[in-house]
């Protein structure tokens, strides 16, 4: 039974539909997501992708905003270190979000809610696997209330 | 194992003889080891078939001549058919054997020894060819 089906059956008992916002770089991870599509690899519909030119375009503000507006998990996906279309963008992503992830955990966010991963254009499998895993973990944790704006009803 | 000095000229005459008898060029061998890998008799050999060629390339004839290997070789020609470099190793083995038994007093098998070794189930042709193989 795929995770998607599992979720549907479990939704009868709990009404929790987690939302995952994924920022994908145009050259590797967004293409990897497309490949997951062309390969018909299932992952849950709760994952929604925002395309950015490079993972280094992702501002920590965007991540915080997603949590604020009700995302239960956030994923940033970029090219593997060394493969960046812009030579070195993802190296900056790596440093920035190594610190940012730790800071978010320091203020109490569960580590599973925020992920960074490297997914190449050829890794449709990995894309689906990363998203499935992220969703599974977030599902276990339940809805996110931390950093969330209570006025913003999803 | 002590260090050895390569003196390729040392056994030049014998080596040349082997190459003449066999008509094979040991230099063609790239030491891929396919002969050894396919040899059905390799388990009873002290030097493996590809090592035989390597030693010949290095001029180490003594080591080959004193080995069990040349006598274990059944001349089944598996190595020959499979060699990617077109070397007939079976012929080379035969040539080594010949150089040995041709030298004075080096017959491997004397006519008198034959009756004792005969197995009634063995084909007669094998007995004859075995005798030919091991005697001048």
């Amino acid at each position, binding site marked *: 039974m795929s995770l998607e089906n599992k979720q549907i059956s479990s939704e009868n008992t709990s009404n929790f539909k987690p939302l995952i916002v994924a920022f994908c770089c145009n050259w590797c991870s967004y293409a990897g997501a497309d490949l997951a599509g062309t390969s018909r690899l299932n992952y849950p519909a709760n994952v929604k992708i925002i395309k950015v030119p490079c993972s280094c375009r992702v501002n920590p*503000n965007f991540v915080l905003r997603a949590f604020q507006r009700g995302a239960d998990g956030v994923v940033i996906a970029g090219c593997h270190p060394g493969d960046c279309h812009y030579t070195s963008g993802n190296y900056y992503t*790596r440093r920035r979000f*190594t610190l940012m992830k730790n800071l978010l955990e320091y203020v109490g966010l569960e580590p599973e809610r925020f992920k960074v991963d490297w997914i190449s254009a050829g890794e449709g499998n990995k894309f689906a696997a990363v998203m499935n895993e992220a969703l599974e973990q977030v599902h276990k944790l339940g809805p996110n209330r931390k950093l969330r704006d209570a006025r913003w009803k999803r | 194992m002590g260090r050895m000095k390569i003196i390729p000229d040392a056994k030049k005459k014998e080596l040349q003889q082997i190459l003449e008898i066999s008509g094979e060029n040991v230099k063609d061998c790239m030491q891929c080891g396919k002969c050894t890998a396919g040899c059905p008799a390799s388990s009873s050999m002290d030097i493996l078939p590809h090592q035989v060629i390597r030693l010949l390339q290095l001029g180490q004839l003594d080591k080959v001549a004193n080995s069990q290997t040349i006598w274990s070789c059944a001349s089944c020609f598996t190595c020959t058919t499979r060699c990617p470099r077109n070397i007939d190793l079976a012929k080379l083995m035969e040539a080594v054997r010949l150089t040995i038994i041709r030298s004075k007093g080096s017959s491997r098998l004397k006519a008198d020894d034959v009756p004792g070794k005969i197995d009634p189930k063995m084909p007669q042709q094998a007995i004859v060819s075995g005798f030919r193989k091991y005697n001048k």
Partner: protein
Amino acid sequence: MEKIANKVRETARLALANGEVNKILGWKKGDFWYDSYPAFITEEEGTASLIWDSFCVANLSKYLIEQLKEDIKVGVFLKGCDARAFNQLLKDNRVDRDKVVIYGLPCPGMIDPEKVKKAGLAKGLLDVQKSEDEVVFITKEGEQKFSAREFAYDKCLTCQYPNPVVYDELLAEEVERNNTTEYFYQDVEEIEKMSPDERFAYWVEQFSKCIRCNACRNVCPACSCEKCIFDNSKANVAGKAKVDSEEQFFHIVRAYHVAGRCVDCGECSRVCPVGIPLAKLNRKIIKDITEFYGEHNAGVNPSLDAPLETFKLEDIDPFETRAKGGK
């Protein structure tokens, strides 16, 4: 300290007199014993009011941004942490080194009035005098002596750079770098030990006190943008509503913006009127940077690249979950 204070006044007077500088930034005494506030002096006679005591905690370097907009030369008194702040401003192109004359003041550590008040010693206090490691509280009734460490600011207890790292003239002998007995990152580790929920509860409680007065921002030598992103309505990140998530957003982003640039002067925590321990956020990042990318003391050597403006190929990668190539 009084000897040095005399030197402060004399230095300032001379500098204005011989035209070396047009303006002096120093400290003046206010109405209360704990009140030593920034002074901007342009006339020679004004220098007589300058002081140097155990309450000159205010960092003068950030005032330079405004002061240097005029085409003048400014003389400024800087302590160890202030000098690091100055270097950070220099790195951010916010001050012009050529227009500043720095008088370095090795700092023996400042006294935290809050700790004095808490100890019940504030009543009737006339003067506070500090020697090497003793502090004397003087009231009408007499004198009381204590260990100086007891009343020092928390930030002074962990101070690594009491001596100015940049100056044109040093006004006193360098003090010994105090080797703290407490472990340097104790405050951070206490929080790290908690569970995620405990940590969140802790910070929500802290952040919810925030009144968005922006004092932390205004005092911070690393927060020197012309226009803060939170003041820019076009940037669309700032909400003005008094809700928890807005405060959380602000404080996380504030801490991230000073990542690798915070000089650990602790002024943010000091000036916060509601007592949010902001430095604990900054120090968490400093701790992580040290652990991941090697020690980087912002403002000590302005020629070094800030950790977030550079990278190494072999940086740690906490993110790689699967080997390259997928399944």
